[in-house]
């Protein structure tokens, strides 16, 4: 098994005729993801170079293909509408790669999708990959390897860095999930931990957190109270100055909370080893398994 995506994933790419959407649709097809269609309003009827049919809207796309998952590569100002449309069409999992969505858009998206039973990953997410089965996102597929370690992260490239070290040390992954760097996201660290807790093929979880918010502290509390998987962590932003947004909209220390120090301490209190450099994660996980 794995979480969120596997061989049964039937994917629609929203924004498939755009530069990023087109490129990554091909990459996902090459990886073996079952890309059943794409949507771009006004471009319905055409096919991509890989032979993926393009539809004008999500309802039609879902009716024609039986899709259960979508991935969003549209510009930020149209992204909330793309999520609403996917959810309305009955999509179960929406992965929003688009970044730069206003927080207020997400405040109206989340209750809407919850009512319709849709899970949203992101926005500002690098996507999800269950190595060897399916990839929905923008991460380079070849650095991953099938295995039993779950990875959840608020970052993109930092996750690649850490996954790369896992893979070269022979540690494979069940699923790697980038939850996104925004302050308000569809699936947070705690939601992801729940998903991994219930996955029999995941034996250990790598949590990659960063400054801002208090989800890492809450995660530490859950681990302390008895989490069924082994956990290793990395926290980015030890050297980040307070009050400054560090690239991600959600990566900011405000009013003295959300610091790396607090998060590291919370993990230490819960008995979770926190790596000081990305490369150290592999060693910590090897020790746990």
């Amino acid at each position, binding site marked *: 098994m794995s979480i969120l995506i596997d061989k049964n994933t039937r994917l629609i790419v929203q924004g498939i005729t755009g530069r990023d959407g087109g490129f990554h649709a091909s990459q996902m097809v090459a990886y073996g993801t079952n890309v059943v269609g794409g949507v771009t309003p006004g471009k319905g009827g055409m096919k991509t170079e890989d032979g993926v049919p393009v539809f004008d809207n999500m309802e039609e796309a879902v009716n024609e293909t039986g899709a259960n998952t979508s991935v969003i590569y549209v510009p930020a100002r149209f992204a909330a509408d793309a999520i609403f449309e996917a959810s309305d069409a009955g999509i179960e999992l929406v992965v929003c790669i688009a970044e730069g969505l206003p927080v207020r858009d997400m405040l109206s998206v989340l209750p809407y999708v919850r009512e319709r039973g849709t899970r949203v990953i992101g926005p500002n997410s690098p996507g999800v990959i269950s190595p060897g089965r399916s990839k929905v996102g923008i991460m380079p597929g070849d650095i991953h390897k099938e295995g039993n370690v779950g990875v959840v992260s608020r970052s993109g490239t930092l996750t690649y860095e850490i996954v790369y070290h896992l893979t070269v040390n022979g540690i494979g992954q069940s699923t790697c999930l980038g939850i996104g760097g925004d302050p308000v996201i569809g699936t947070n660290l705690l939601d992801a931990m729940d998903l991994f807790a219930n996955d029999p093929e995941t034996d250990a979880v790598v949590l990659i957190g960063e*400054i801002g918010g208090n989800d890492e502290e809450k995660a530490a509390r859950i681990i302390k109270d008895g989490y069924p998987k082994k956990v290793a962590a*990395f926290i980015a932003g030890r050297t980040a100055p307070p009050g400054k947004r560090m690239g991600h909209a959600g990566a900011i220390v405000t009013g003295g909370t959300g610091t790396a120090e607090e998060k590291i301490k919370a993990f230490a209190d819960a008995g979770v080893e926190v790596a000081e450099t990305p*490369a150290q994660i592999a060693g910590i996980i090897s020790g746990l398994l």
Partner: protein
Amino acid sequence: MKIHEGDARGIFAAFGLPVPPSRFITKAEEAGPVAEELGCPVVVKAQVLVGGRGKAGGVKLASDPIEAVEKAKAILGMDIKGLTVEKVLIAKAVDISKEFYVGMVVDRITRKPLMMISAEGGIDIEEVAKSAPEKILKVVIDPITGLLPFQTRKMASFLTSDKDVARQLGPVFRSLYQAFMEIDSSLAEINPLVVSPDGKVWAIDAKINIDDNSLYRHEDIRALRDDSMEDAGEVEAREADLSFVKLDGSIGCIVNGAGLAMATMDMIKYYGAEPANFLDIGGSSSPEKVLSAMKIILRDKNVKAILVNIFGGITRCDDVAKGLLEAKKRLGIDIPLVVRLTGTNEEEARELLRGTELVSADTMDEGVKKAIEIANA
């Protein structure tokens, strides 16, 4: 994005909050006529985008127009936490018999708007949240229903038992919520909200931060941005669509992705040096972006070595390599560059950089160590 108190007061007033009238001035002598017009006493307030203006001596009361000019003269040009006061606000003063705190943020846990109030106004809310959390009432607002009447009643009675004051608080909470949502605010505070001796409620300070991602739909608010309040490099970076934060160390960093950029800074510190900046060139980076990034870093004379750390996904390593070579040619860089490029098109990138004086590194650890070694040489 942060905006000045004077502009925030204007927005609050437009949403119906009881804000005493005020005017911006940039020359001390303008304070006299403004004070005359508003009616004395007035408060003369430094307009800088940092907290703690009062403690720094940037807020003074003036009882007549002559005193207003004197106080304005003293405050204009003052340095508050590294920022020069170029504008002051002259506001009609209000006598205070009671002070409250009222603020709003988006709560990351419930993923909903959150109003926070306290009967201890004028305080540092974050400090109170830690030392005496029972003094703060937090009310989560469902964006589908908006602020509900029972919630405003609960908040009003948390602050006061005075019926006349409570009656005025309901509209204050509603207006603040409405303003917060409509302008895509990430933080909106009235600190303090006061009751004057005649029993009237006034918002005598205003703070609003706006969600940067929403600015495309708020042209009027975007125009309120004051670039003089930020580091010149940070302004230039924003215009080039890069995320940049200036720090005090000697190792410049160019990284793709915010998490990896922070991890790079942290690793520099871990190996015993200090980073000069945070810089994320973002995904799908073009050679032009790398060139802009290089220009911004080179403004900083403390930089002794520059580390380029790229894990290519959407970002193509050969694009970054081209940008680096272009920067080297156009900017005449004499600071050593250490380059670590992994991922998409790394072979092509390596080919492009072969035979140049750029120092290459295979891993992030090696790159950081080499950069530090060179900077210390």
